[in-house]
């Protein structure tokens, strides 16, 4: 017997060990429950974590902070030395060692998208880093902290500010890359929710899969965002800022932080109003005659005036601390809306908002609608805000084209001349180094952009007006404004900018 036990003692011990570990596993569950019930666990257990991360967070215990500090020091040192290739890995380790520490996620993502990206003179390189910052928050930060308002807010901010605003010289590349990626996913630039919510063909299923897996976006939520605040142009980063802020509001538990997400929404609405319309056109490739690629321009999205106004008013109700500031912003938005709608020949809407702003803010406009718009022209004449000026120029040129269609050629010429003068003045005001970053399209380019819309049978002028415009401008029946714009751009690329005046 002794011999038998001696021979098989090793196997008995292994069996005993397995039984003990299994029992400990069962015990652990009840212990965890007891810890939670008694309030002994300060942090929630890590969910959705891969085995390696789950193991390291448990096994390292208190040493996690120490290791994280060492990694942080290394990251800082490497950054000072200009060695960025380890940053994504270090950020991944640091955040995973402290997965519930929201500021760590936010800091690391900010570092990648903002601090490191600008260290690269090449804009393509910058885009890689902006993407890595977004991915860190969206793909990992939210996975471990799905209810953290700050992460939603930061993610929305990256879209709205880093990609959407024009403070980074590479902003146009970010927008173009994003637009190109989403152009592949959306049919004709607009989401067809019937298809996206119930894809039938393999291609549609794949597109939805990419939206969900790569961009972590749900078409059902996109639809809700559109219904509540849109319709939006989903190829623009601002729309994605709205998406993440909207989602944050729906799932976050920290009500005290809601205000930050609401701010993102009303600021996003404001930006979408100013330049939330995307005009795509083909660009001829000078090196390959006959070949075209897609390019984009931006214009105001006047269709969301009503909803932008609602977002402001909602924000004013929610953010009492900054009520006065938001009120001032709201007043300015309404004044701009009146002006933009007028210059875009949407007279009825302009009058409606004119009445509204005078009623809501009696001191806002103390003149007739025409007098106000004229005064605003004078005021904007010296504006160096790229978006505002572009919106205004587009408005003048659109008005001028409609005047041509209506046979009022003198008025049309005056309008176009004014647009040209304003553009020239803008270029005189900005300094040489800003020309690339905040450049304006030429009047000719804007004119062709607008022709594309005005001659569109669905969205543009009625058939009679469109035909009159074609005739008076001497355009052929098969004239394609998008193609013309592409050719114009290609010529400008080869020969340099064309003189305006």
């Amino acid at each position, binding site marked *: 017997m002794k011999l038998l036990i001696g021979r098989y003692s090793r196997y008995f011990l292994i069996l005993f060990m397995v039984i003990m570990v299994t029992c400990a596993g069962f015990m652990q569950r009840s212990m965890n429950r007891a810890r939670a019930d008694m309030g002994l666990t300060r942090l929630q257990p890590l969910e959705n974590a891969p085995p390696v991360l789950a193991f390291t967070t448990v096994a390292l215990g208190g040493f996690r902070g120490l290791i994280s500090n060492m990694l942080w020091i290394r990251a800082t040192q490497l950054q000072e030395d200009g060695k960025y290739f380890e940053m*994504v*890995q270090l950020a991944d380790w640091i955040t995973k060692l402290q997965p519930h520490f929201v500021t760590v996620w936010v800091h690391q993502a900010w570092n990648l998208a903002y601090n490191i990206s*600008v260290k690269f*003179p090449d804009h393509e*390189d910058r885009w*890689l*880093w902006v993407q890595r910052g977004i991915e860190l928050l969206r793909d990992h930060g939210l996975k471990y902290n799905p209810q953290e308002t700050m992460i939603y807010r930061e993610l929305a901010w990256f879209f709205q500010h880093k990609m959407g605003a024009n403070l980074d010289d590479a902003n146009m590349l970010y927008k173009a890359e994003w637009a190109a990626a989403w152009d592949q996913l959306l049919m004709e630039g607009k989401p067809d929710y019937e298809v996206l919510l119930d894809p039938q063909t393999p291609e549609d299923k794949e597109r939805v899969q990419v939206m969900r897996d790569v961009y972590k976006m749900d078409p059902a939520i996109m639809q809700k965002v559109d219904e509540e605040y849109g319709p939006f142009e989903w190829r623009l980063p601002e729309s994605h800022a709205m998406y993440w802020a909207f989602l944050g509001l729906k799932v976050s538990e920290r009500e005290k932080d809601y205000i930050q997400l609401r701010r993102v929404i009303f600021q996003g609405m404001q930006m979408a109003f100013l330049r939330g319309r995307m005009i795509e056109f083909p660009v001829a490739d000078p090196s390959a005659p006959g070949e075209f690629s897609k390019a984009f321009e931006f214009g105001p999205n006047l269709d969301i005036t009503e909803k932008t106004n609602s977002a402001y008013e909602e924000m004013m109700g929610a953010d009492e601390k900054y009520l006065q500031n938001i009120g001032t912003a709201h007043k300015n938005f309404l004044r701009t809306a009146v002006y933009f709608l007028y210059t875009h020949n949407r007279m009825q809407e302009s009058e409606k908002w004119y009445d509204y702003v005078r009623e809501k803010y009696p001191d806002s406009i103390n003149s007739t609608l025409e007098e106000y718009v004229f005064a605003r022209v004078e005021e904007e004449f010296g504006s160096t805000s790229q978006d505002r000026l572009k919106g205004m120029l587009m408005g003048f040129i659109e008005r001028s084209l409609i005047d041509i269609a209506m046979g009022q050629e003198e008025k049309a010429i005056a309008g176009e001349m004014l647009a040209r003068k304003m553009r020239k003045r803008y270029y005189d005001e900005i*300094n040489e180094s800003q020309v690339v970053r905040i450049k304006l399209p030429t009047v000719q380019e804007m004119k062709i952009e607008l022709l594309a819309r005005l001659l569109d049978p669905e969205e543009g002028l009625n058939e009679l007006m469109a035909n009159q415009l074609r005739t008076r401008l001497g355009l052929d029946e098969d004239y394609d404004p998008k193609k013309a714009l592409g050719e114009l751009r290609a010529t400008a690329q080869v020969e340099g900018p064309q003189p305006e005046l």
Partner: protein
Amino acid sequence: MQGLFAIVGLTLKAAIRYRVVIVLSFLLLASVVVLPLMIKHDGSAQGFTQILLTYTLSAITFLLGFATLWIACGSLAREVQECQIQMLAVKPIARWKIWLGKWVGIVIINAILLGVSSSAVYGITLWRAGQLSESQQEVLENEIFVARGSALPDYPDIEPYIDEYMAERLEENPNLVDMDPTYVRSQVEEQVKASQQVVRSAHIRRWSIPVSSPESVKDQPMFLRVKFFTSRPYDTSTYNVLWQIGPPETPQRERLSMDIAPETPIEFEINPNLLDAEGNLIVDIYNDNQEALLFPLEDGIEVLYKQGGFGWNYLRGMLVILCWMGFLAAIGLAASSFLSFPVAAFVSIGILIVGFSSGTLSQVIEQGGIGGINHETGRKDSASGLDYIALPIAKGLLNVINLVKDFSPVSFLSTGRSITVSILFQALTQIVLVMGGIFAAFGIWAFYRSELATAQGNQ
């Protein structure tokens, strides 16, 4: 020499018998294969190759270094402890030969393991690069799979200017005589330096950078590496500058307009064949900003150019790592010459920790003492008694540590920098001959003095 070789052979046999070589080979190869699958990178081919080289070579260095210390401590201390050394000591062979034979044996084991694992890294890196598009391969060829030399501008000696300026200042303001002369001189020095470093708003500065072998860089891509500061600390904005590179008033002069960020080095490619007749690269920068930009004299601007191929550079880098292993073997053997295995291992690791603490030592020197600094100046206002002891020790230790740590083959390889033959010889001299020699001398001396036949604790 026969005795020495015999010991070397015994050490190698022992390493194979104890399966050290097999286990280590497996570990090293596993790390080389597994690491590339796990690491995350910035998404660019360069980024991936850089992190691949850095992490795999660092892992190899770490594993080999740890194993070297372990083997070195074990091979001598255990033999003494288990009385096996007596079998050798009674043979007609000098103790220094026993000690040196073990060291050579350990270095040979390291050389074999390093050779196998680094060849695997080399092969994997090149194989993965081969999968990339031609344009990306070209980028790797120019920036990483290359040995790039470096050229800095010729700055005039500023000492005479400082003397002259100092004399002028003292003449203008006699009250300066009452101030600390070192402080006044450092201030004057900074002013003189500033005149060579600062590019004022809407101004142009020109650098002339002599490239040592102009013929060798003909038709080869070159890179400009720049680093600048502004008056704002932790500045995250970007600045518009216009570079004009190449001989002035010639058609090949290159104009590059870019917005660049301060505080960290930025590297960009410039056209080949931009050197003038004297082999100088003329670089002009126009500062199109409101702020002045400061390009430090030490690393403000640097030209990187192709000096050789990646293969030989890689080999030289591996030899520098082998020098480190030789040094670690010397530390381990020296410790185990007079200590038992656990104590020797503890002492060796302690020495390494002090070595890794060079940052702390530098900080002590920079701050002028230990603890209690003035946060306005970043230095101690007055030195304590302890500082008078700590400072010289820190300076001495740092000088010694830097003899070994001043080489960074992994960093050089991952950034395509040239590890020249002179760097390799310098590493061999400083790390193996000087530092390793000191430990070897001490170890051999201790080994001669140790009583090998003393009854051991485990008997």
